[in-house]
């Protein structure tokens, strides 16, 4: 499939403005999605990863949420599209058509009063104008493709009649309706139990190989990242603190926060990972995005903290060739 860039996010910044508080949810985030490959965005809740995905889809809660900087460009077959500049109407043509999204809560992400088949068919009928019967037939095929048994019958079922796993498969089927270039998966496996989680990851990988679509995978679970992602970016306080090839980062994290995350994993889950220090939790709590410290945002909780960490802004500079780290002592951490 090679690595043709499908989606480029450059210096994206997002703010939530209320009368007395300005929350800088995302600051200066850049990454690219390549066809047929999965890019993972990792971080604790409140790190800005979900906001980034919503910003790409331009689904931020108006009027509070606003993109205040950077751009998102979709490299569609018929030419690049600057998503951040599109009119709302033009963006609607992209959503669900070229970029699709699946969410964390399968229980509530489907409309309870419509059958699963109808909700999937709706995407095709809306974007491609296919007839009702044809769209429904397509929906049944998609349900079958995502591994739902007796798809023809299940298509007439209502969401509450399906299990969590099946519902997530239905969401994926809905996302695939128009063969999108990019699929954004916002913590799709978090609400599922472990066995179903593995099946879901396997399904996504299969679909990706088959369709060649780029996947942006958002999670806080490093285990999942290891399974599915080829490239990963770790986010903290709205910034990318480390970005690079997944295996390399897992093997030799160069940012204290990434290191801390990996150290807090119980060893037996990652038997193929050399056991580092005993289980350690990262002290302190997530930074308040409305009151960001001047220097490195992780400094207050960082074991390697030095005075110079807290003075100027820390740049995201390339450490070895294909790795970006936002830490002045990256060398020592490795």
């Amino acid at each position, binding site marked *: 499939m090679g690595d043709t860039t499908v989606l480029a996010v450059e210096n994206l910044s997002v703010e939530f403005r209320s009368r007395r508080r300005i929350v800088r949810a995302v600051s200066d985030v850049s990454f690219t999605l390549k066809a047929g490959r999965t890019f993972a965005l990792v971080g604790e809740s409140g790190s800005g990863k979900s906001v980034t995905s919503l910003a790409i889809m331009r689904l931020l809660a108006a009027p509070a949420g606003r993109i205040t900087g950077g751009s998102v460009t979709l490299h569609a077959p018929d030419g690049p599209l600057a998503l951040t500049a599109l009119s709302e109407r033009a963006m609607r043509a992209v959503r669900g058509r070229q970029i699709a999204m699946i*969410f964390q809560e399968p229980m509530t*992400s*489907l*409309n309870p*009063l*419509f059958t699963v088949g109808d909700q999937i068919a709706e995407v095709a009928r809306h*974007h491609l104008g296919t007839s009702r019967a044809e769209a429904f037939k397509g929906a049944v095929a998609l349900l079958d493709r995502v591994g739902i048994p007796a798809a023809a019958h299940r298509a007439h079922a*209502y969401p509450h009649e399906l299990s969590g796993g099946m519902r997530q498969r239905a969401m994926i089927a809905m996302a695939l309706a128009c063969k999108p270039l990019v699929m954004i998966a916002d913590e799709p496996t978090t609400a599922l139990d472990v066995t179903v989680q593995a099946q879901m990851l396997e399904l996504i990988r299969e679909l990706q190989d088959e369709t060649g679509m780029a996947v942006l995978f958002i999670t806080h679970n490093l285990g999942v990242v290891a399974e599915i992602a080829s490239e990963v970016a770790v986010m903290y306080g709205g910034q990318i603190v480390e970005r690079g090839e997944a295996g390399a980062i897992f093997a030799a994290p160069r940012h204290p926060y990434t290191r801390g995350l990996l150290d807090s994993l119980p060893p037996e889950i990652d038997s193929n990972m050399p056991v580092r220090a005993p289980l350690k939790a990262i002290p302190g709590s997530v930074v308040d995005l409305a009151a960001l410290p001047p220097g490195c945002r992780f400094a207050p909780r960082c074991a390697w903290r030095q005075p110079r960490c807290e003075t100027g802004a820390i740049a995201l500079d390339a450490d070895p060739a294909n790795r970006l780290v936002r830490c002045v002592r990256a060398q020592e951490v490795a």
Partner: protein
Amino acid sequence: MFRAVSNRLGSIATVMFIVATVVFVISRVIPGDPASVVLGAAATQDEIARLRIDWGLDKPLIVQYVAFLGQLIRLDFGTSLFLGQPVAAAMLERAELTISLCILATLISVLFGMPLGILAGARRDGLFDRLGSALAILGASLPSFWVGLILIRFLAVDLGWFPVSGWGGPEAGWAERLHHLILPGVVLSLPNAVLLLRITRTSMIDVMSQDYIRTARAKGLGPSVVILRHALRNALLPVVTVIGLTAALMIGRTVVTETVFGLPGIGNLVVQAVLRRDYPVLQGVLMTVAGLYVVINLIVDLLYRWIDPRVRGSLQ
């Protein structure tokens, strides 16, 4: 399914029994007696006594109570002491007006209450939301008869756009009937419209924050499709029950509206019954209204279960 309906019918029967007892006690405790009202001020005491015997009002209360329950079982509300016709007939004659008025008022309240509620709920704290809430609070605080009198004064008498009272003679076609019912319909619909607006707004706000709405937007659907197709149907579920209940409670409020606008409906009949001490009519109307409320309550409940697929399958 059958078990659910049967114990509901059981509870309805007990409720109606309590209602019947309450109605009987109320009507028998009222001071003043119908005989003197019918005979007029100049009647002497023995004439009044004679009439009371004719109507069986002199029998001990227990006997009257048993007779009353006996009649109720046979759905026979007895004969009006005043109108010289069976209570059922008197109610039927007036039912058409009251029901037409209630239907019109419900339609008006739905036409005004719900759209405003949807617009207000769709964008919280938007222009419509502020406007809607202000209208709602104001609408709910105006005494309906006061509004009625003002409407009569300005719209009917001064401008002459509407008739002052009544709803046209026997020869009046339904167009003239309707013309008579507009103002009372508006007055009667006011509290319901306000309630509908509030309930729809709250329900819309709640639904708009749901995940499946975000999914719908992520599918690239336009705001109107998201609201009208996905949000509305879910938002309407609780609203349907409210429409049902308020329509039933509206019958109580017709009492005031029909008096202000001089409409010979059931509401007015019950006021007359109280003032003329026409026990059978009072009992008949109170039983019917209460019965109607309970029945509408049941229908709305079943309707709600049928609309919501989540419940339809597993009717407990």
